[in-house]
Protein backbone atom coordinates (compact mmCIF):
# COMPACT_ATOMS: atom_id res chain seq x y z
CA UNK A 1 0.00 0.00 0.00
CA UNK A 2 1.30 3.42 -0.96
CA UNK A 3 1.02 6.62 0.98
CA UNK A 4 2.43 10.11 0.56
CA UNK A 5 5.98 10.62 1.79
CA UNK A 6 7.21 14.17 2.38
CA UNK A 7 10.89 14.76 2.97
CA UNK A 8 13.84 16.64 1.50
CA UNK A 9 16.42 15.00 -0.74
CA UNK A 10 19.62 16.87 -1.49
CA UNK A 11 18.06 20.14 -0.40
CA UNK A 12 14.88 19.84 -2.44
CA UNK A 13 11.52 19.19 -0.76
CA UNK A 14 9.76 16.15 -2.21
CA UNK A 15 6.32 14.61 -2.08
CA UNK A 16 5.97 11.12 -3.53
CA UNK A 17 3.56 8.23 -3.32
CA UNK A 18 5.74 5.50 -1.81
CA UNK A 19 4.91 1.96 -0.72
CA UNK A 20 4.81 1.71 3.08
CA UNK A 21 7.16 -1.28 2.99
CA UNK A 22 9.69 0.46 0.71
CA UNK A 23 13.26 0.74 1.89
CA UNK A 24 15.01 4.09 1.69
CA UNK A 25 17.48 2.68 -0.85
CA UNK A 26 14.66 1.56 -3.16
CA UNK A 27 12.99 4.95 -2.90
CA UNK A 28 16.22 6.74 -3.75
CA UNK A 29 17.26 4.45 -6.59
CA UNK A 30 13.96 3.37 -8.14
CA UNK A 31 11.62 6.29 -7.51
CA UNK A 32 14.10 9.18 -7.71
CA UNK A 33 16.67 7.55 -10.01
CA UNK A 34 19.51 8.47 -7.65
CA UNK A 35 21.58 5.39 -8.41
CA UNK A 36 24.75 6.78 -6.87
CA UNK A 37 23.70 5.12 -3.62
CA UNK A 38 24.83 1.53 -4.09
CA UNK A 39 23.17 -1.71 -3.12
CA UNK A 40 26.03 -3.93 -1.90
CA UNK A 41 25.45 -6.68 0.64
CA UNK A 42 21.87 -5.45 1.03
CA UNK A 43 21.85 -6.55 4.65
CA UNK A 44 23.61 -3.87 6.68
CA UNK A 45 27.11 -5.31 6.56
CA UNK A 46 29.02 -3.36 3.89
CA UNK A 47 28.06 0.34 4.10
CA UNK A 48 27.81 0.85 0.30
CA UNK A 49 24.32 2.32 0.76
CA UNK A 50 25.38 4.93 3.34
CA UNK A 51 23.46 8.21 3.02
CA UNK A 52 23.05 11.10 5.43
CA UNK A 53 19.82 11.58 7.37
CA UNK A 54 19.84 14.99 9.09
CA UNK A 55 23.61 14.94 8.64
CA UNK A 56 24.17 11.53 10.26
CA UNK A 57 25.24 8.45 8.30
CA UNK A 58 22.54 5.81 7.90
CA UNK A 59 22.26 2.54 5.99
CA UNK A 60 19.62 3.09 3.31
CA UNK A 61 19.19 -0.69 2.91
CA UNK A 62 18.15 -1.07 6.56
CA UNK A 63 15.90 1.98 6.80
CA UNK A 64 12.25 2.22 5.83
CA UNK A 65 11.56 5.19 3.55
CA UNK A 66 8.54 6.30 5.57
CA UNK A 67 10.49 6.20 8.83
CA UNK A 68 12.53 9.22 7.66
CA UNK A 69 9.47 11.35 6.89
CA UNK A 70 10.18 15.05 7.27
CA UNK A 71 13.94 14.52 7.44
CA UNK A 72 16.74 15.86 5.25
CA UNK A 73 18.34 13.10 3.13
CA UNK A 74 21.66 13.63 1.39
CA UNK A 75 23.12 11.29 -1.20
CA UNK A 76 26.37 11.35 -3.17
CA UNK A 77 24.53 13.25 -5.94
CA UNK A 78 24.00 16.16 -3.54
CA UNK A 79 27.65 16.84 -2.81
CA UNK A 80 28.83 18.50 -6.02
CA UNK A 81 27.84 22.13 -6.57
CA UNK A 82 27.25 23.46 -10.10
CA UNK A 83 29.35 20.66 -11.58
CA UNK A 84 32.22 21.18 -9.15
CA UNK A 85 33.35 18.20 -7.13
CA UNK A 86 33.15 18.45 -3.34
CA UNK A 87 36.39 18.44 -1.36
CA UNK A 88 36.02 14.72 -0.64
CA UNK A 89 35.12 13.81 -4.22
CA UNK A 90 38.12 15.76 -5.47
CA UNK A 91 40.42 14.17 -2.89
CA UNK A 92 39.23 10.63 -3.73
CA UNK A 93 39.85 11.42 -7.42
CA UNK A 94 43.30 12.94 -6.94
CA UNK A 95 44.56 10.51 -4.28
CA UNK A 96 43.27 7.35 -5.98
CA UNK A 97 40.75 6.63 -3.20
CA UNK A 98 38.50 4.93 -5.72
CA UNK A 99 39.36 1.66 -7.48
CA UNK A 100 36.34 -0.17 -8.86
CA UNK A 101 34.28 2.63 -7.32
CA UNK A 102 31.41 0.62 -5.93
CA UNK A 103 32.07 1.42 -2.26
CA UNK A 104 33.07 5.02 -3.01
CA UNK A 105 29.68 6.76 -2.57
CA UNK A 106 29.20 5.10 0.82
CA UNK A 107 32.79 5.87 1.85
CA UNK A 108 32.43 9.51 0.83
CA UNK A 109 29.10 9.96 2.64
CA UNK A 110 30.47 8.40 5.85
CA UNK A 111 33.57 10.60 5.54
CA UNK A 112 31.44 13.67 4.82
CA UNK A 113 29.56 13.14 8.11
CA UNK A 114 32.89 12.81 9.90
CA UNK A 115 34.43 15.98 8.43
CA UNK A 116 31.35 18.04 9.26
CA UNK A 117 31.53 17.12 12.95
CA UNK A 118 35.33 16.86 13.13
CA UNK A 119 37.06 18.88 10.36
CA UNK A 120 40.55 17.62 11.26
CA UNK A 121 40.28 13.97 12.27
CA UNK A 122 43.29 11.85 13.13
CA UNK A 123 43.98 8.63 11.26
CA UNK A 124 42.37 6.52 13.98
CA UNK A 125 39.26 8.69 13.94
CA UNK A 126 38.99 8.28 10.17
CA UNK A 127 39.35 4.51 10.52
CA UNK A 128 36.69 4.42 13.23
CA UNK A 129 34.26 6.53 11.19
CA UNK A 130 34.71 4.31 8.11
CA UNK A 131 34.70 1.04 10.08
CA UNK A 132 31.28 0.11 8.72
CA UNK A 133 32.29 0.56 5.07
CA UNK A 134 33.85 -2.34 3.17
CA UNK A 135 36.07 -1.99 0.09
CA UNK A 136 36.30 -5.30 -1.75
CA UNK A 137 39.28 -3.98 -3.73
CA UNK A 138 40.85 -3.55 -0.26
CA UNK A 139 42.13 -0.08 -1.16
CA UNK A 140 41.80 1.22 2.37
CA UNK A 141 45.14 3.03 2.59
CA UNK A 142 44.31 5.29 -0.35
CA UNK A 143 40.81 5.86 1.00
CA UNK A 144 42.17 7.03 4.35
CA UNK A 145 44.76 9.21 2.60
CA UNK A 146 41.98 10.73 0.51
CA UNK A 147 40.00 11.68 3.61
CA UNK A 148 43.14 13.17 5.14
CA UNK A 149 43.73 15.17 1.97
CA UNK A 150 40.13 16.41 2.06
CA UNK A 151 40.55 17.52 5.67
CA UNK A 152 43.66 19.49 4.67
CA UNK A 153 41.67 21.05 1.84
CA UNK A 154 39.25 22.35 4.47
CA UNK A 155 42.23 23.87 6.25
CA UNK A 156 43.44 25.62 3.10
CA UNK A 157 39.99 26.97 2.36
CA UNK A 158 39.62 28.31 5.91
Amino acid at each position, binding site marked *: *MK*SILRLAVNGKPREDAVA*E*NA*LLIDYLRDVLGLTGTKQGC*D*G*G*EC*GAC*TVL*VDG*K*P*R*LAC*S*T*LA*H*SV*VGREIETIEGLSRAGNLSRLQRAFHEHLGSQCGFCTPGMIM*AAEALLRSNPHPGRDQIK*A*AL*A*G*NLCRCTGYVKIIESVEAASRAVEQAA
Partner: protein
Amino acid sequence: MAALPDFRLLRPATAADAVRLRGEHPASRFIAGGTDLLPNMRRGLMTAEAIIDLGGIAELSELRVVDGWLHVGAGVTLAALAADPVAQARLPALAQAAASVAGPTHRTAATVGGNLCLDTRCMYYNQSEPWRHAIDNCMKIAGDVCRVATKSDRCWAAFSGDVAPALLVLDAEVLVLGAQGQRRVAIADFYRDDGMAWLSLAVDELLVSVRIPLREGWVSAYEKMQVRGAIDFPLTGVAVALRREGDTIADVRVACTGVSSRPELIAGLDALAGNPLDDAALALVEKQIKRGTQPMETTVINVSYRRRVTPVLAKRVLRRLWEAAG
Protein backbone atom coordinates in the same frame (compact mmCIF):
# COMPACT_ATOMS: atom_id res chain seq x y z
CA MET B 1 17.99 -10.47 -0.21
CA ALA B 2 14.29 -10.83 -0.73
CA ALA B 3 11.96 -7.84 -0.78
CA LEU B 4 10.10 -7.00 2.39
CA PRO B 5 6.64 -8.51 2.75
CA ASP B 6 3.72 -6.17 2.20
CA PHE B 7 2.77 -4.37 5.40
CA ARG B 8 1.16 -1.21 6.71
CA LEU B 9 3.49 1.21 8.50
CA LEU B 10 1.93 2.83 11.57
CA ARG B 11 3.61 5.79 13.24
CA PRO B 12 2.18 6.48 16.71
CA ALA B 13 3.16 9.70 18.55
CA THR B 14 3.06 8.27 22.08
CA ALA B 15 4.10 5.04 23.79
CA ALA B 16 0.51 4.50 24.92
CA ASP B 17 -0.68 4.73 21.30
CA ALA B 18 2.02 2.26 20.24
CA VAL B 19 0.78 -0.27 22.80
CA ARG B 20 -2.83 0.30 21.75
CA LEU B 21 -1.95 -0.27 18.07
CA ARG B 22 -0.06 -3.43 19.00
CA GLY B 23 -3.22 -4.72 20.65
CA GLU B 24 -5.35 -3.81 17.64
CA HIS B 25 -3.02 -5.50 15.15
CA PRO B 26 -2.14 -9.00 16.38
CA ALA B 27 0.20 -9.67 13.42
CA SER B 28 2.28 -6.56 14.03
CA ARG B 29 5.79 -5.77 15.21
CA PHE B 30 7.53 -2.78 16.69
CA ILE B 31 10.41 -1.23 14.79
CA ALA B 32 12.95 1.30 16.06
CA GLY B 33 16.31 1.53 14.24
CA GLY B 34 15.42 -1.46 12.07
CA THR B 35 19.00 -2.75 11.78
CA ASP B 36 18.06 -6.15 13.27
CA LEU B 37 14.42 -6.47 12.23
CA LEU B 38 14.64 -5.46 8.55
CA PRO B 39 17.44 -7.86 7.50
CA ASN B 40 15.69 -10.62 9.48
CA MET B 41 12.40 -9.93 7.71
CA ARG B 42 14.15 -9.96 4.35
CA ARG B 43 15.63 -13.37 5.16
CA GLY B 44 12.11 -14.61 5.84
CA LEU B 45 12.83 -15.09 9.55
CA MET B 46 9.81 -13.08 10.59
CA THR B 47 6.84 -11.40 9.01
CA ALA B 48 4.17 -8.85 9.92
CA GLU B 49 1.02 -7.33 8.47
CA ALA B 50 1.69 -4.05 10.24
CA ILE B 51 4.90 -2.48 11.45
CA ILE B 52 4.63 0.02 14.30
CA ASP B 53 7.40 2.58 13.91
CA LEU B 54 8.52 3.90 17.30
CA GLY B 55 10.77 6.56 15.72
CA GLY B 56 8.23 9.38 16.13
CA ILE B 57 7.72 8.92 19.88
CA ALA B 58 9.64 11.72 21.64
CA GLU B 59 9.29 10.26 25.16
CA LEU B 60 11.30 7.19 24.12
CA SER B 61 14.34 9.35 23.30
CA GLU B 62 14.85 10.82 26.78
CA LEU B 63 18.33 10.52 28.24
CA ARG B 64 18.73 12.24 31.62
CA VAL B 65 19.71 11.94 35.26
CA VAL B 66 16.89 11.92 37.83
CA ASP B 67 17.47 11.39 41.57
CA GLY B 68 20.68 9.43 41.23
CA TRP B 69 19.57 7.28 38.29
CA LEU B 70 20.45 7.58 34.62
CA HIS B 71 17.22 7.18 32.65
CA VAL B 72 17.72 5.94 29.11
CA GLY B 73 14.71 5.84 26.80
CA ALA B 74 14.41 2.69 24.69
CA GLY B 75 14.59 4.88 21.58
CA VAL B 76 17.93 6.49 22.48
CA THR B 77 20.42 5.52 19.78
CA LEU B 78 23.50 3.52 20.69
CA ALA B 79 25.60 6.38 19.29
CA ALA B 80 23.92 8.86 21.65
CA LEU B 81 24.37 6.57 24.67
CA ALA B 82 28.03 5.87 23.81
CA ALA B 83 28.67 9.63 23.64
CA ASP B 84 26.74 10.55 26.80
CA PRO B 85 29.08 12.20 29.33
CA VAL B 86 27.29 10.72 32.36
CA ALA B 87 27.45 7.19 30.94
CA GLN B 88 31.11 7.64 30.00
CA ALA B 89 32.12 9.00 33.42
CA ARG B 90 29.89 7.04 35.79
CA LEU B 91 28.84 3.89 33.88
CA PRO B 92 31.78 3.12 31.57
CA ALA B 93 30.68 -0.51 30.97
CA LEU B 94 27.44 0.84 29.51
CA ALA B 95 29.08 3.45 27.27
CA GLN B 96 31.68 0.91 26.10
CA ALA B 97 29.04 -1.72 25.37
CA ALA B 98 26.97 0.76 23.34
CA ALA B 99 30.08 1.84 21.41
CA SER B 100 30.96 -1.78 20.61
CA VAL B 101 27.71 -2.69 18.85
CA ALA B 102 28.07 -3.27 15.08
CA GLY B 103 29.54 -0.34 13.11
CA PRO B 104 29.20 3.44 13.42
CA THR B 105 26.51 3.63 10.75
CA HIS B 106 24.39 1.09 12.62
CA ARG B 107 24.78 2.92 15.91
CA THR B 108 23.30 6.17 14.54
CA ALA B 109 20.06 4.26 13.88
CA ALA B 110 20.07 1.28 16.27
CA THR B 111 18.53 1.88 19.69
CA VAL B 112 19.05 0.74 23.26
CA GLY B 113 15.64 -0.96 23.26
CA GLY B 114 16.43 -2.74 20.01
CA ASN B 115 19.72 -4.06 21.35
CA LEU B 116 18.05 -5.26 24.57
CA CYS B 117 15.34 -7.05 22.58
CA LEU B 118 17.73 -8.29 19.86
CA ASP B 119 16.64 -11.54 18.28
CA THR B 120 18.73 -14.50 19.44
CA ARG B 121 21.24 -15.69 16.86
CA CYS B 122 22.51 -18.99 15.51
CA MET B 123 24.41 -20.07 12.41
CA TYR B 124 21.56 -22.42 11.54
CA TYR B 125 19.00 -19.60 11.84
CA ASN B 126 20.61 -16.41 10.49
CA GLN B 127 20.76 -17.76 6.94
CA SER B 128 18.87 -17.35 3.69
CA GLU B 129 15.63 -19.26 3.17
CA PRO B 130 17.16 -21.74 0.64
CA TRP B 131 20.06 -22.42 3.03
CA ARG B 132 17.70 -23.15 5.91
CA HIS B 133 15.44 -25.24 3.70
CA ALA B 134 18.43 -27.34 2.58
CA ILE B 135 19.01 -28.53 6.16
CA ASP B 136 15.28 -29.03 6.72
CA ASN B 137 15.06 -25.92 8.94
CA CYS B 138 15.41 -25.65 12.71
CA MET B 139 12.88 -25.33 15.52
CA LYS B 140 13.29 -21.55 15.78
CA ILE B 141 11.91 -21.21 12.26
CA ALA B 142 9.70 -23.73 10.46
CA GLY B 143 11.47 -26.89 11.72
CA ASP B 144 11.24 -29.44 14.52
CA VAL B 145 14.71 -29.90 15.95
CA CYS B 146 17.46 -27.70 17.28
CA ARG B 147 20.39 -28.19 14.84
CA VAL B 148 22.83 -27.25 17.59
CA ALA B 149 21.61 -29.97 19.95
CA THR B 150 19.45 -32.37 17.96
CA LYS B 151 18.27 -34.37 20.98
CA SER B 152 17.32 -31.27 22.95
CA ASP B 153 13.71 -30.17 23.30
CA ARG B 154 14.66 -26.49 23.35
CA CYS B 155 16.31 -23.92 21.06
CA TRP B 156 19.87 -22.92 21.95
CA ALA B 157 20.21 -19.76 19.81
CA ALA B 158 22.52 -17.31 21.60
CA PHE B 159 21.55 -13.91 22.92
CA SER B 160 24.09 -11.58 21.31
CA GLY B 161 23.27 -8.07 22.49
CA ASP B 162 26.18 -6.10 23.95
CA VAL B 163 24.25 -3.67 26.18
CA ALA B 164 22.41 -6.20 28.38
CA PRO B 165 25.48 -7.62 30.21
CA ALA B 166 26.56 -4.08 31.11
CA LEU B 167 23.10 -3.41 32.53
CA LEU B 168 23.26 -6.67 34.51
CA VAL B 169 26.47 -5.74 36.32
CA LEU B 170 25.20 -2.18 36.85
CA ASP B 171 21.98 -3.47 38.44
CA ALA B 172 19.60 -1.72 36.04
CA GLU B 173 15.82 -1.90 35.83
CA VAL B 174 13.63 -1.73 32.75
CA LEU B 175 10.24 -0.07 32.46
CA VAL B 176 7.66 -1.96 30.45
CA LEU B 177 4.33 -0.54 29.27
CA GLY B 178 1.33 -2.74 28.48
CA ALA B 179 -2.40 -2.36 28.06
CA GLN B 180 -2.76 -2.97 31.82
CA GLY B 181 -0.28 -0.25 32.75
CA GLN B 182 3.43 -0.12 33.39
CA ARG B 183 5.76 -2.32 35.42
CA ARG B 184 9.39 -2.18 36.50
CA VAL B 185 11.48 -5.27 36.05
CA ALA B 186 15.02 -5.97 37.24
CA ILE B 187 17.11 -6.47 34.11
CA ALA B 188 17.93 -10.06 35.15
CA ASP B 189 14.23 -10.90 35.22
CA PHE B 190 13.71 -9.41 31.75
CA TYR B 191 15.41 -12.44 30.15
CA ARG B 192 14.68 -16.16 29.95
CA ASP B 193 17.01 -19.02 29.08
CA ASP B 194 15.21 -20.04 25.88
CA GLY B 195 16.41 -19.20 22.35
CA MET B 196 12.83 -18.92 21.09
CA ALA B 197 11.31 -16.98 24.01
CA TRP B 198 14.19 -15.06 25.53
CA LEU B 199 12.24 -12.02 26.76
CA SER B 200 9.79 -11.73 29.63
CA LEU B 201 7.67 -9.41 27.56
CA ALA B 202 4.02 -10.05 26.65
CA VAL B 203 3.12 -9.57 22.97
CA ASP B 204 1.32 -6.30 23.68
CA GLU B 205 4.05 -4.89 25.91
CA LEU B 206 6.62 -2.26 24.96
CA LEU B 207 10.04 -1.71 26.52
CA VAL B 208 9.91 2.01 27.33
CA SER B 209 13.12 2.78 29.18
CA VAL B 210 15.90 1.51 31.37
CA ARG B 211 17.29 3.17 34.48
CA ILE B 212 20.68 2.61 36.04
CA PRO B 213 21.68 3.63 39.59
CA LEU B 214 24.64 6.03 39.76
CA ARG B 215 26.54 4.49 42.67
CA GLU B 216 29.76 5.74 44.23
CA GLY B 217 32.92 3.71 44.37
CA TRP B 218 32.28 1.36 41.43
CA VAL B 219 34.42 0.90 38.33
CA SER B 220 33.18 -1.06 35.32
CA ALA B 221 34.08 -2.11 31.79
CA TYR B 222 32.83 -4.16 28.82
CA GLU B 223 34.86 -6.13 26.29
CA LYS B 224 33.95 -8.54 23.52
CA MET B 225 35.58 -11.01 21.17
CA GLN B 226 34.49 -10.86 17.55
CA VAL B 227 35.54 -12.27 14.19
CA ARG B 228 35.37 -8.98 12.34
CA GLY B 229 36.77 -6.13 14.42
CA ALA B 230 34.79 -3.34 12.77
CA ILE B 231 31.26 -4.81 12.74
CA ASP B 232 30.27 -7.95 14.53
CA PHE B 233 28.14 -9.62 17.11
CA PRO B 234 30.05 -10.91 20.15
CA LEU B 235 31.44 -14.44 20.01
CA THR B 236 31.51 -13.76 23.70
CA GLY B 237 31.22 -10.51 25.62
CA VAL B 238 31.98 -9.78 29.25
CA ALA B 239 30.90 -6.90 31.49
CA VAL B 240 32.51 -6.44 34.89
CA ALA B 241 31.68 -4.05 37.74
CA LEU B 242 33.97 -3.85 40.75
CA ARG B 243 34.05 -2.00 44.05
CA ARG B 244 37.48 -2.12 45.67
CA GLU B 245 38.15 -1.15 49.29
CA GLY B 246 41.87 -0.88 49.99
CA ASP B 247 43.40 -4.22 49.17
CA THR B 248 40.18 -6.21 49.12
CA ILE B 249 37.20 -6.71 46.87
CA ALA B 250 34.08 -5.15 48.36
CA ASP B 251 31.78 -6.23 45.53
CA VAL B 252 32.22 -7.76 42.10
CA ARG B 253 29.71 -8.55 39.38
CA VAL B 254 30.39 -10.31 36.07
CA ALA B 255 27.95 -10.88 33.20
CA CYS B 256 28.41 -12.58 29.85
CA THR B 257 26.70 -12.37 26.47
CA GLY B 258 26.82 -14.51 23.33
CA VAL B 259 27.37 -17.70 25.31
CA SER B 260 23.82 -18.55 26.45
CA SER B 261 20.29 -17.88 25.25
CA ARG B 262 20.12 -15.00 27.69
CA PRO B 263 22.70 -12.55 29.00
CA GLU B 264 24.02 -14.30 32.08
CA LEU B 265 24.88 -12.71 35.44
CA ILE B 266 27.51 -15.01 36.91
CA ALA B 267 26.42 -16.44 40.27
CA GLY B 268 28.59 -17.39 43.22
CA LEU B 269 30.97 -14.42 43.23
CA ASP B 270 29.76 -13.10 46.61
CA ALA B 271 32.41 -15.31 48.22
CA LEU B 272 35.06 -12.95 46.83
CA ALA B 273 34.04 -10.07 49.10
CA GLY B 274 36.74 -9.34 51.64
CA ASN B 275 39.45 -11.09 49.60
CA PRO B 276 42.19 -9.60 47.46
CA LEU B 277 42.11 -10.21 43.70
CA ASP B 278 44.68 -13.00 43.83
CA ASP B 279 45.07 -16.20 41.81
CA ALA B 280 42.52 -17.99 43.96
CA ALA B 281 39.95 -15.24 43.33
CA LEU B 282 40.57 -15.35 39.59
CA ALA B 283 40.29 -19.15 39.62
CA LEU B 284 36.89 -18.87 41.28
CA VAL B 285 35.77 -16.36 38.62
CA GLU B 286 36.85 -18.79 35.90
CA LYS B 287 35.08 -21.71 37.56
CA GLN B 288 31.84 -19.78 38.04
CA ILE B 289 31.83 -18.50 34.44
CA LYS B 290 32.32 -22.03 33.11
CA ARG B 291 29.53 -23.21 35.38
CA GLY B 292 27.18 -20.34 34.53
CA THR B 293 27.44 -20.21 30.74
CA GLN B 294 26.87 -22.76 28.03
CA PRO B 295 28.27 -21.74 24.66
CA MET B 296 26.85 -23.99 21.94
CA GLU B 297 27.62 -24.47 18.26
CA THR B 298 25.76 -21.27 17.31
CA THR B 299 28.72 -19.55 15.61
CA VAL B 300 31.33 -20.68 13.11
CA ILE B 301 33.96 -20.31 15.82
CA ASN B 302 34.01 -23.52 17.80
CA VAL B 303 32.58 -24.03 21.26
CA SER B 304 35.83 -24.93 23.02
CA TYR B 305 37.41 -21.62 22.02
CA ARG B 306 34.46 -19.60 23.28
CA ARG B 307 34.35 -21.65 26.46
CA ARG B 308 38.02 -20.95 27.14
CA VAL B 309 38.15 -17.33 26.03
CA THR B 310 35.17 -16.11 28.07
CA PRO B 311 36.92 -16.46 31.47
CA VAL B 312 40.18 -15.20 29.94
CA LEU B 313 38.40 -12.03 28.86
CA ALA B 314 36.69 -11.65 32.25
CA LYS B 315 39.94 -12.06 34.19
CA ARG B 316 41.71 -9.59 31.90
CA VAL B 317 39.02 -6.95 32.44
CA LEU B 318 38.89 -7.68 36.18
CA ARG B 319 42.66 -7.29 36.63
CA ARG B 320 42.60 -4.02 34.71
CA LEU B 321 39.74 -2.63 36.81
CA TRP B 322 41.45 -3.80 40.00
CA GLU B 323 44.58 -1.84 39.10
CA ALA B 324 42.58 1.22 38.04
CA ALA B 325 40.67 1.23 41.33
CA GLY B 326 43.78 0.79 43.50
